[in-house]
């Protein structure tokens, strides 16, 4: 329980999170960290009775494991899988993201299968891409069932979902006919005047968890307890509604 000791004795919880993933975590107009993940981290720290401090190493660095005490916790919307849990521990799932298809607003597509045989994009190596490849298996507990609703002609992978949306906004069929991404991201893009619209219902739900370095059971249990409390007392639901306008803290079919 090295990590827990360190947190308690120093009185600060160092949280690693992304700074460019609105609305989960981003820099707000005052150039401070803000977002759903950030609020969750703040709440966790509050319940531990310590201050919170954010650091922003890249995804590669966080997921390499062996943090060496540089930071204590990652609140970064990671999907917990068995293979990944060989590298990091996932104390608790704190919400679920729906994934959805988006098309240009001029697109004639009505249902998911209208994109069959078309160019569909996704962030590379994301669950969205795996979904398009029909190779998605989320082996975390409590993952809802899903079906493959689209058979794209060509899958284009992008550095991230935003890059795919940038291509899609050029016009219907200019480079892309559609893309898969997280529903919240698509919605906030639409709010920022991207000429897109969501196609159909969410195609699958993805559980997202906190992560810590391996080897500290006490810290793991403590965090699991805290997240459990936050769920049961409705704090998470409030936060989700604040940021997404919807309650994503449980998977809805």
């Amino acid at each position, binding site marked *: 329980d090295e990590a827990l000791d360190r947190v308690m004795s120093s009185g600060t919880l160092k949280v690693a999170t992304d700074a460019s993933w609105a609305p989960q975590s981003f820099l707000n107009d005052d150039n401070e960290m803000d977002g759903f993940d950030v609020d969750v981290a703040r709440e966790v720290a509050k319940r531990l009775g310590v201050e919170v401090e954010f650091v922003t190493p*890249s995804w590669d660095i966080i997921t390499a494991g062996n943090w060496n005490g540089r930071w204590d916790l990652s609140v970064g919307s990671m999907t917990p899988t068995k293979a990944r849990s060989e590298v990091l521990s996932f104390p608790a799932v704190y919400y679920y993201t729906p994934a959805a298809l988006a098309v240009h607003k001029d697109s004639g597509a009505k249902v998911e299968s209208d994109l069959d045989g078309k160019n569909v994009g996704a962030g590379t190596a994301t669950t969205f891409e795996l979904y398009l490849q029909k190779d998605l298996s989320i082996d975390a507990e409590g993952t809802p069932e899903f079906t493959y609703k689209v058979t794209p002609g060509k899958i284009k992978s992008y550095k991230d979902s935003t890059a795919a949306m940038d291509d899609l906004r050029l016009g219907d069929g200019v480079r892309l006919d559609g893309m898969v991404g997280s529903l919240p991201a698509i919605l906030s893009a639409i709010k920022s005047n*991207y000429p897109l619209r969501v196609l159909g219902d969410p195609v699958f739900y993805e559980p997202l968890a906190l992560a810590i370095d391996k080897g500290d059971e006490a810290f793991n249990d403590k965090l699991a307890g805290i997240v459990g409390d936050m769920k049961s007392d409705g704090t998470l639901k409030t936060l989700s509604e604040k940021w997404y306008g919807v309650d994503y803290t449980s998977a809805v079919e």
Partner: protein
Amino acid sequence: MLFADTVVSDPAVHKPKVMLIMLVVATFLLTLFGLNDTIYGEFMRPVIGEPKESGFFGNVATGFVLAIIFVINVVLIGFAAFRVQILIVWLELLLLFLAFFYSFGLNYEFIQSKIWFMITQGVFTTLYISAISIVLASIVAIFGAVAKLSSNGFAFAIASFYTSFFRGLPLLMQVYLIYLGLPQLGYVIDAVPAGVLALTLCYGAYMTEIFRAGIQSINKGQWEASRSMGFGFALTMRRIILPQAMPLIIPPTGNQFIAMLKDSSLVSVIGVWELMFLARTLGNKDFRHMEMLITAALIYWCLSICLELIQSRIERHYNTISH
């Protein structure tokens, strides 16, 4: 300047033949581009009609008009003096590029609201990390170059391994290796020192090669003269060889400095908030990354223009003293 040859031919662009050729070539090239569908075509709509109707004729007409504008411009510039020519051409190109940026339809208020933070936080971090790394890399490079030129197998082997390894591995990888690898050996190193170390080692390796070429290029007679006067190795190097190698070393070194400015952005992977990191981050929430990226790019450009001015001043210094 090249060997002036003391023969300056009449500005070629004022010969009617040359003008005509320029016009034909420009029209041809611009027609090839098929400008009909572009914004240039839009300006011509009243004359050429809708894209689909005008077709090939539209392309040629648009191309021709642009070509005429281009040639008139070149001919007029030809009348000006050297420095004025440079000024005009720079301004024109700048305007063209600004127009190009403008065509992205950026949100300027957004840029305004963020630019101050980008400068105070981002530029500052970028600059101090690059400045430290550049100084250290230059020092590494001098030793590396001497070692690579030495007849001592041990020094040569270490230096060549060093340049091979640190040029061969992607800088990102070096940042990772230092940041994630050193803790495995027992040292937990902070983000900024890790970044500076990686940049120093990587750029030191590149600059080793540059310094080597510069030192090697100096005439053997210079070594002979100074050695025969009893100058030691270090003295010869410092006072005779390096100053003469400077005009050769400076331009590629300037390249490295400018590249470093931008490569320093790689340290953002380990959580350092430098310019590029902010550019990618600040625009994220509102999907304004093009705004932020272009702003960052222009800031980088300004910084590197400063470096270029410094470079050309140093170069002039060394060229004056050695003709």
